[in-house]
């Protein structure tokens, strides 16, 4: 398996607070990898570092063989890395189809001359673009909502639309920031199936999440963070039975009770 994303010795401080210190991660192609940890563990900071939102104090992030440092945000989509947001960031007054089309903007490119004269070739490209976007929406089970304005959709569907829009950029790596936040157990189950179907399209996935049942279900590999450091890593069996992890989540006393001492 090829390593799609490699992170080495990543550190970031805000003033005197070391939010992330000396983190190393590996994400292999075709895997679903999760980063978990209690509130304030530094997960979101790691995510923001990976997606170029912050610049790291130390360390290296290599995506698809190339270092990420210094890239502009729109370059990430061109290079095949895309993220969703914990709080929805849809284009609210546009339809579902338009939202997905925006995801495809950098995929289809015309020359300025084609734009000015609206050539037949450009019109064909445009039609293909719309058809491809509509097909993606249909495949993801949102066919009936194609022309609905997206602020009229239920919350669960809006979350899903954000995923579909991210898929439209044709990423290699999809990064999900707390995808289950605000979903009920039923929706969370659907989300798990949805994430599997995305993986089956050949897309690698990196998730940050609180929802342990979701993480357990979907992850091939899990990294646990606490106080800005890596606590433990491994498959879900290993991580869920690790004493340090249980302690970080429910405290020392709880850890004792769980292990039966």
């Amino acid at each position: 398996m090829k390593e799609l994303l490699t992170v080495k010795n990543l550190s970031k401080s805000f003033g005197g607070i070391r939010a992330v210190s000396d983190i190393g991660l590996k994400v292999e192609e075709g895997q679903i990898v999760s980063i978990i940890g209690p509130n304030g563990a530094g997960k979101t900071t790691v995510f923001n570092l990976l997606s170029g939102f912050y610049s790291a104090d130390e360390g290296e992030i290599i995506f698809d063989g190339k270092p990420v440092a210094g890239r502009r945000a729109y370059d990430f989509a061109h290079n095949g890395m895309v993220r969703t947001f914990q709080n929805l960031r849809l284009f609210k007054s546009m339809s579902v189809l338009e939202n997905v089309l925006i995801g495809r903007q950098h995929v289809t490119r015309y020359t300025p001359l084609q734009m000015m004269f609206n050539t037949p070739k450009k019109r064909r490209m445009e039609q293909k673009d719309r058809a491809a976007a509509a097909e993606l929406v249909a495949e993801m089970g949102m066919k009936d909502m194609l022309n609905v304005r997206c602020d009229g959709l239920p919350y669960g569907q809006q979350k899903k639309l954000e995923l579909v829009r991210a898929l439209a950029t044709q990423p290699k790596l999809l990064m999900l920031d707390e995808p289950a936040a605000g979903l009920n157990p039923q929706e969370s189950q659907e989300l798990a199936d949805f994430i599997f179907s995305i993986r089956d399209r050949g897309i690698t996935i990196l998730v940050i999440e609180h929802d342990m049942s979701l993480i357990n279900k979907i992850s091939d590999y899990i990294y646990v963070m606490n106080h800005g450091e890596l606590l433990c890593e491994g498959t879900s069996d290993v991580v869920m039975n690790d004493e340090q992890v249980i302690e970080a989540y429910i405290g020392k006393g709880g850890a004792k009770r769980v292990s039966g001492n």
Partner: protein
Amino acid sequence: MTYFLQLTINAIALGSIYALTAVGYSMVYGILELVNFAHGSVFMLGAFSYYIFAVLVGLPWYLSFLITFILIGIVGFAYDRLTLLPLRRTNQPKFTGLICTLGVSIVLQNLVFVFMGSNTRQFPTFFEGRYLSLGPFNISFIQILIVCLSVAIMVALSLFVKKAKLGVAMRAVAQNSMASEWMGINVNSVVSLTFIIGSVLAALSGILSCMSFRSLDITIGSTIAIKAFTATVLGGIGNLGGAVLGAFIVAMAESYTAGFISSDMRDLSAFVILMLVLLFRPNGLLGKAVQKKV
């Protein structure tokens, strides 16, 4: 009644010019949440550029138009890249950008003052001031041209924003620039495009307005800036349809004030409207109430 209708006809022509200017204001505000106070100076610069090429150099009108549009497009692009982009890059507060547009406005006005002086010049026009007589009404050819051209441009612009790929990108950036950037849209290019379109529209309305009034001096920019600003605020800032509606309302108020009260009071009407709007409907006629997130 005839007099009233004649004033209305004049107001429609005037409103078209205001609309072209106000749309540029509104577009920039929609994308950057920034009131571009240099817009009026670009309007004036466009008129001067046409004057220089058509009268002083003596080029034919179509070449003068073309050169002016290219030149003003470059000015709009450079204006954003050299002054506003560095502020955005360093995450300066929006207020700094606002002051910056005022500064650019002063610089542009004084540049024109240094090279062209402050005297009023006669501006070339089309159709030699001929007009169409429909019963008791007189409509000059230049007024008809202005209205037709403005309508055509508004229709083209709204189609562009609605359908074209770049237009859709502009709307996306206006709604959520961070998410757009993450979807692979180069936000700075979209902002540049907005400034280019807005500036060219300002230059066009500057030329048309001078053709209609047949005179040009360096103060025309500041008057139009107030009126187009009133129009945008009246319609609901950031809303293109609102800007057009506001432009016609301001033009009508101005025309009736001049016709029925006194022509000295015409500029006063815009300020009165601006104050009333800010008092009773601060979000504008078509604007939605904005809830600021905390």
